[in-house]
């Protein structure tokens, strides 16, 4: 239509279109109006295609990660009998009794591939870490968003970024060399490196994650909620506790779940500070071994193509699935509250 009308027709169409989009105030409409004038330009088209291809790299990467992780992981499922991932019957050396035990011991004459101690170890570190970090992370978010004056906030915020910027291997080394001694002195633990040491280290990493999302969520609460509460005569703390927090509680929950996903995936701190003993326990003062630490500690020493190699990729697949699911839940919640909040 525009092509037949010639240049003048094009301009008129553009003007009409611009008027329409101005009226609706939508920038995208303006873009679209702009772009049909230049539809014929091959260079513009080529550049747009090039940019599109580049932006597909992220999606391609996540697909490849999924494919290559699960390809090897599935081989473990075919190479090793499935019940062995739960546990095996072991004959006790002394009493000659047969017991069902959960053991991860992939090297030796009869390798054992129970995933139970690794999963329980992961959660024994991740749950306390999330608990600690949620308290302080939400506290920091509240402080930055509700209490601090702008100048204090400008001063305080870089500290969170600084904490987030410390390499995890440094925190791991610190917990191993110094933090563990402190915790042993305070709690008189029999194992120097235990789940709690790891949990405290991991909470250092996820406090900034939770704090920054909580702050964003609090900032996104519509002003009306705040003003209505103040208009009823509520004080600041009453407003926050009884009006704002209930209003944005899904957002806070999303922050906690995101933090927990990070805690489950954290590697260097747990491999250095939790003692790395693969056992099923609910005692936070005992050494545990997480899924991440197992991969980090063992993959370097296994032969490619061996059963253990595939088993480690299976552990990686489980890890990927858990964290992917948690990220997905976070996104889902945020997507839902985004309309309610002004994010």
């Amino acid at each position: 239509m525009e092509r037949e009308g010639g240049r003048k027709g094009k301009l008129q169409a553009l003007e009409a279109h611009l008027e329409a989009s101005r009226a609706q105030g939508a920038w995208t409409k303006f873009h679209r109006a702009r772009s049909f004038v230049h539809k014929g330009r091959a260079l513009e088209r080529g550049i747009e295609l090039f940019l599109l291809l580049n932006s597909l790299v992220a999606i391609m990467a996540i697909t490849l990660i999924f494919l290559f992780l699960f390809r090897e992981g599935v081989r473990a499922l075919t190479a090793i009998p499935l019940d062995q991932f739960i546990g095996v019957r072991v004959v006790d050396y002394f009493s000659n009794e047969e017991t069902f035990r959960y053991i991860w011991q992939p090297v030796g004459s009869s390798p054992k591939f129970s995933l139970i101690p690794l999963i329980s170890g992961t959660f024994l570190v991740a749950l306390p870490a999330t608990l600690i970090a949620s308290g302080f992370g939400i506290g920091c978010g509240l402080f930055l968003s509700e209490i601090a004056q702008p100048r204090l906030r400008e001063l305080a915020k870089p500290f969170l970024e600084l904490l987030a910027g410390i390499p995890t291997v440094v925190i791991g080394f610190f917990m191993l060399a110094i933090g563990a001694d402190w915790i042993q002195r305070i709690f008189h633990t029999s194992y120097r490196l235990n789940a709690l040491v790891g949990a405290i280290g991991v909470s250092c990493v996820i406090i900034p994650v939770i704090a920054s999302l909580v702050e964003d969520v609090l900032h996104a609460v519509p002003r009306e909620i705040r003003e209505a509460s103040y208009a009823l005569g509520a004080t600041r703390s009453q407003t926050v506790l009884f009006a704002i927090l209930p209003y944005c509680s899904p957002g806070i929950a999303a922050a906690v779940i995101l933090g927990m996903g990070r805690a489950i995936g954290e590697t260097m701190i747990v491999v250095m500070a939790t003692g790395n003993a693969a056992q099923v326990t609910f005692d936070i003062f005992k050494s545990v071994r997480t899924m991440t630490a197992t991969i980090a500690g063992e993959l370097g020493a296994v032969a490619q193509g061996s059963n253990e190699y595939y088993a480690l990729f299976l552990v990686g697949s489980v890890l990927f699935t858990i964290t992917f699911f948690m990220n997905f839940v976070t996104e889902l919640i945020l997507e839902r509250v985004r309309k309610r909040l002004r994010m």
Partner: protein
Amino acid sequence: MTFSHNSRSRRSVRLLEWAFVIAAGFSMALVVLLIAWIFVPILYYGAKVVTPSFLFESPKKGMTAGGILPAIFGTLSLVTLMILAALPVGIATAVYLVEYVQDSPIARVIRAGVNNLAGIPSIVFGLFGLGFFILFVGRHLDQVLQTGMLFGKPALLWAAMTLAVLVLPVVIVSTEEALRAVPWSYREAAYALGATRWQTTSRVVLLQARPGILTGAILAVSRGAGETAPILFTGAAYFLPKLPVVYFNVPLLPFQLPILNPFDQFMELAYHIYIMATQSINVQETRPIQYGTTFVLLVMTFLFNLTAIVMRSFYRRQLKASLQ
């Protein structure tokens, strides 16, 4: 003024107010204390070890003495290769998202991918690097190009590629933010002069967003320098007698030209800390070296982060001033 009718409930209201402020303030104070708790001992013990000879010597006597020059060199060359790979792709993605598709369905799909990529545990990147880059891409390249075992083994190149995928979300998100910070009126002005979308993007928007993009790149470098898990199986080595460098004879040059060899393995600061603290022959005896290495890595990433934070606040202030 308050809900309360009598003095008792008024007191409880005031108590709640105080408890709230103290609890939140304590959380923030704890963050500062946590940083001090980590920084002070490492800086204290590290400063005793870090001397010019520690920075510019190779390890000696079976890793129990000497310096960490190869590890510093390895870290720097690793993050250089990483950012060279991640920056162009990251900027292109951000430009496409902000300048071309905004909030369309395709943008939402790409953003979801980027968010998910950012949430993948770093050790999974290590598995991916080994399974994809080394065993799949590398081995197949070797087969096709008949190069023996050049590509299909752990190397600086593959470690950098793995890290590049890991920091890609950092680059994309910070570049997006930088592009959004450029006022829309600038674009409108460019369009009004008859510029096409690419002309507007390349000559106006990207130019204006340069400091913000640079900030993001520095943050990405800092993040990459601190990561350990992705390079465990993709190229980091416990000890190497030589730097990952090859020398070329160039005509008319009085010396051999050193060039970074991306097919070598390398020593790296973060990996050095991990391996020295957990798996070296005498962990207690080499503690000073561990503190020194941690000191160097911490100061390095701290300086990167500080530069980024300062640059960003300066840039934001400048933008605000230019808008007034």
